[in-house]
């Protein structure tokens, strides 16, 4: 069953994020896709997120299709104006990619092309509206399309530093849902209790909210997130657990697996994020018994 059908049938969906290469060597991406095939419902392909120049998500999505994996590709307004965004969305559809995730885009100040000019011709909400417009056969200029696409558009709730920031994120997400977003990817879960109260808050959005399960690859990463994003919910206890472990990599996988199993009881899906350790995705699913 396709991602779209599972989503609308209220079935649990498992997504995994995979990055395109910085270059044309697609071996790793293809191997990771083959390894995960049949274990996830779709693979999410970011498009130069964190401002790192890579092969575009469009090609990543096409590669997934070639290897029998359904893709969801990121789309955002930092690098393209409304013309390019709509044109690439149509191109994606023609190539068989109909799942688009409109995401927040990191600024260029921390990127590997810091001198670049950011575009931001439109914002995330306007992009969701534009894609919904394409679904209805019209472009942003009001002109009719020759052949109407059928995108499943998603959006994100970004990381939030406090309750006030979450409230703003929820207002923004509500607007995107009203504009046509059919699912929402939410920030990484490190604390299931906190996640439960988060899920209660997002319930009125009335579309599936799919949390991220993030693979903690090292003690340093856990400490960094705990210090820089206290609201993320990495507890001292969790850090102690990783520190005491004789095999910290394995401990990270176990933690991700436990989180995934816990999230399964509370949400209609999950997105696994391993940031370069996509070869470990299967291990996380095994750890969760999925």
């Amino acid at each position, binding site marked *: 069953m396709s991602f779209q059908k599972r989503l609308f049938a209220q079935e649990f969906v498992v997504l995994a994020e995979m990055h395109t290469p910085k270059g044309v060597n697609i071996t790793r991406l293809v191997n990771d896709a083959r390894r995960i095939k049949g274990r996830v419902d779709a693979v999410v392909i970011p498009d130069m997120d964190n401002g790192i120049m890579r092969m575009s998500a469009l090609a990543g999505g096409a590669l997934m299709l070639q290897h029998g994996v359904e893709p969801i590709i990121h789309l955002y307004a930092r690098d393209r104006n409304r013309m390019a965004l709509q044109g690439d969305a149509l191109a994606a559809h023609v190539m068989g990619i109909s799942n688009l995730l409109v995401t927040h885009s990191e600024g260029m100040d921390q990127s590997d092309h810091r001198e670049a*000019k950011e575009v931001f011709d439109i914002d995330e909400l306007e992009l969701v509206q534009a894609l919904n417009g394409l679904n209805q056969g019209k472009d942003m200029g009001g002109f009719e399309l020759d052949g109407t696409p059928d995108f499943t558009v998603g959006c994100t709730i970004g990381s939030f530093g406090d309750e006030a920031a979450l409230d703003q994120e929820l207002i923004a997400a509500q607007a995107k849902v009203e504009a046509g977003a059919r699912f929402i990817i939410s920030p990484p879960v490190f604390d299931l209790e906190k996640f439960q109260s988060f899920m209660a808050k997002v319930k009125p959005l009335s579309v599936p909210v799919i949390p991220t399960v993030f693979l903690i690859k090292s003690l340093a990463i856990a400490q960094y997130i705990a210090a820089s994003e206290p609201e993320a919910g990495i507890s001292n206890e969790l850090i102690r657990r990783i520190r005491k472990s004789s095999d910290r990599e394995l401990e990270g996988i176990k933690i991700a697996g436990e989180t995934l199993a816990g999230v399964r009881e509370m949400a209609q899906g999950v997105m696994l994020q391993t940031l370069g350790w996509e070869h470990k995705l299967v291990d996380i699913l095994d750890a969760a018994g999925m």
Partner: protein
Amino acid sequence: MITAERKPLEEILAYIKPFKRILLLGCNECVTVCAAGGRKEVGVLASGIQMSMLKNGTSIEIREHTLERQCDPEYVEELLPMIDSADAVLSMACGCGVQQLATRFKDKPVFPAVNTKFMGGSDRHGVWTERCQGCGDCLLGLTGGICPIAKCAKQLMNGPCGGSARGVCEIGEDVDCAWHLIWERLKALDLTEQYLEIMPAKDWRPGGGSGPRKIIREDLAE
């Protein structure tokens, strides 16, 4: 200077509709020079508002005042004796002035009465054109004193595009090709070797993009 044009009266009236007492503020700097928001324009707008209200059978109290510089906190303090007797402020300064007022008088609605347009200069009486986009890394020393960022529609850095013909830009008969102007000027100055130098992809960071830009002069900052 920063140029501006007055907003349509209907838009201004919509802003001030809920209020009974308005403080209408001009600025003696750029918007006076470009005849958009100086003392004279304050008077004209006040009359326009009053006449329109009269026609609609309503009324409003307008106090007119023009500051030396609305973007300067020192001059904004002048408003202290009059701000409390206004329900809202209508500013005819550029966006910098409007924001200065909104920052200073947090409990007072502040509305813009002009649209801030660009940094430019006067070509002739009543005509202003864009000259600078504040890119933060001035190239005029390499381009004969003509800016390809402000004056080239595509902001090209290494000569004209294919849309330039007979010195005119493809976007309109009345738009000079910036790179034609640069070439002619460098030729006249016997500096054509500057034209042949290839400029690298521009670093746009000094022009902004990572939030509002700021200048801190340690020798002046208190």
